[in-house]
């Protein structure tokens, strides 16, 4: 797996825990959604952990755990399945402040969409990273100077810029 953050391939400091693995005492690790409740219960307040969730997850299922989570990874079962974008928006609306990660076969061209919806990092399989290098991911991020939507992250808003131009 390769991890993209701020237009760069970086080393992943998080470890995805297999379901049969015991919860570790230290380190940053990611549990599956079915183990989340148990993890929140038994782990101390200092533990650093995250959860990977299907894109069909109801945000309400995560609300109670949100303050404890440092990372939420949303699975993209197919790159053209856009449900994860809306889920990311809803988790940000619920004031999740930790790392939001998109995990799946996302292509570089979707990077601005992911950033816009509140994702921080993208996790892709190595074969995809071999074809789509850092330059392509950075290129996608810089393809547009501004966007038409307001309230989405990343690029500046055209509508906002127009308002400023009128007022000045």
């Amino acid at each position, binding site marked *: 797996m390769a991890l993209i953050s701020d237009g760069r391939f970086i080393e992943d400091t998080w470890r995805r825990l297999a379901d049969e693995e015991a919860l570790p005492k230290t380190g940053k690790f990611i549990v599956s959604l079915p183990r989340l409740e148990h993890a929140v219960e038994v782990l101390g307040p200092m533990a650093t952990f995250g959860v990977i969730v299907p894109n069909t997850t109801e945000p309400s299922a995560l609300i109670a755990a949100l303050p404890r989570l440092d990372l939420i990874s949303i699975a993209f079962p197919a*790159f*053209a*399945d*856009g*449900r994860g*974008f*809306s*889920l990311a*928006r809803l988790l940000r*609306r619920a004031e999740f402040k930790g790392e939001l990660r998109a995990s799946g076969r996302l*292509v570089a*061209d*979707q990077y*601005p*969409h992911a*950033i*816009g*919806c509140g994702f921080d990092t993208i996790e892709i399989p190595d074969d995809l990273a071999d*074809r*789509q290098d850092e330059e*392509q991911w950075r*290129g996608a991020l810089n*393809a*547009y*100077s*501004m*966007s*038409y*939507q*307001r*309230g*989405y992250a*990343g690029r500046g808003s*055209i*509508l906002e*810029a*127009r*308002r400023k131009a*009128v007022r000045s």
Partner: protein
Amino acid sequence: MTAVDLRVAQRPNAPMTTYRYDEYDAAFVSERVAEFREQVRRRLAGALTEEEFRPFRLMNGLYLQLHAYMLRVAIPYGTLTARQMRRLADIADRWDKGYGHFTTRQNLQYNWPKLVDTPDILESLAEVEMHAIQTSGNCIRNVTADHFAGVAPDEIEDPRPTAEFLRQWSSLHSEFSFLPRKFKIAVTGAEHDRAAILVHDIGLRIVKNDAGEIGYQVVVGGGLGRSPFIGKVVGNFVPREDLLAFLEAILRVYNRFGRRDNKYKARVKILVHERGIDEIRAAVEAEFAAMDRSPFAHDSVEFERIAAFFAPPPYDSLPATSASMRAAKLESPAFSNFVDVNVGAHKIPGYAIVTVSLKPIGGVPGDATSDQMRVLADASERFGFGELRVSHEQNIILPHVKQDDLFALWRMLDAAGLATANAGLVSDIISCPGLDYCSLATARSIPIAQAISKRFSDMSRQRRIGKLGVKISGCINACGHHHVGAIGILGLEKKGQESYQITLGGDPTFSASIGEILGPGVTAEQVPDVVEHLVDYYLAEREEGEAFIDTWRRIGHARFKDVLRREGEDGADI
């Protein structure tokens, strides 16, 4: 130079009545071209697989068809300037085969572009403030509007500022570019629906409440395709300042809950059908209530900025009816017929709305050659403030012509083969490209349209028949809107043979209805016979003032079915 000419010269890309790009719009579209150029390069270099490339080329209007690529250019809310029409002609000559095809969703299709040329075509379009953004793909498509917008006498408000507002909001939306399926929005601001809003994913009807405020009736879940549905009201009066937020709520509900397990059940109409409109309305209202509305706080200001572009052109004060037009009608029966059939009432006295039919007898519905496009551009500059419209009936509209100029315009159109006086008549057929071009098609559509058109080539007979919508699709995806044709024709394939299913009683307007199947399928050769028998039966049965659909509604489907059955006994194998 007249004052109007001077203003046109100062703003060479537009009459005074449509949106013009500012620096942000221009930058956005040219960045889109650069991005696509890079995507094509990466596709050819192998960085993108065909599967990965597909949604991105589709969102730039590029389809892979039966024989070649097809590029679908957006004509937002159907409005074109003369300069834009000329550019469409130039592109057809330079990169295609000298013609283009106007579609039922206010787009223009080029049927033969090469993949490597498409970035240059998009760049050429961007120079005249055009693009092919989101004319395909599982995203919010090109927003369409009433083609008589701004000039129809029955209008509450011009729907085009709303459509432009939505065009911008929906362009490259971060959240809604990978929806379960395509998503089409249409807007009307009139009392009569010419935009078929009840058969769109979202239909917007501009309405006025008791306090005289403008708002939107929002309809969701209409659509044609293999499972046709009439849209249902999800918001009865949404104030303008809430429109984008309300639409965002609908799109979010759809993006999250629309089916993705079966592409044939992925449209929002299926979600509405399966969950019921009450559940969907509750979900949308809950989402709307939960949203952070601050990003929408200045929507009204932006709307007003856009609306200012759509000011009426500088009309002259004229008598309600032109004496010279009346005199010319008396002298030329052909001109008189053209005026009676193709010319509609305008909200300004002394002006007229002219429909230029792209349905010559025996022609390909919606096709225009580059020469014809240039004639239309010239005609719009000479007679209509340089503005043109594209209708969902695949015709071209000149929206502001002085009645005094109609005769000169008609002569100009006639010389270019563009004066067919059949707007709304039986030969004004909507047809998809069908098996002649399309990889989805199961049967031919264009030759069927041509055969019906030839069968009714006697124009006086057509006028006697009156308004009659014939619509033909070459497969169940229903791009030819057959479900809402008073006579609908659906081409299928049965045991290797083309078979055409006839439906009656479809209606795309506010009185929307889906056509009912007449009987077993017929062969391609039989279609004109069947249509002719149905029409003859209607003529025999109709009462004063009744259109085909009125008679059908009054006497019922069964009586028309009997016509076919009797016909079958007479020897035809139906």
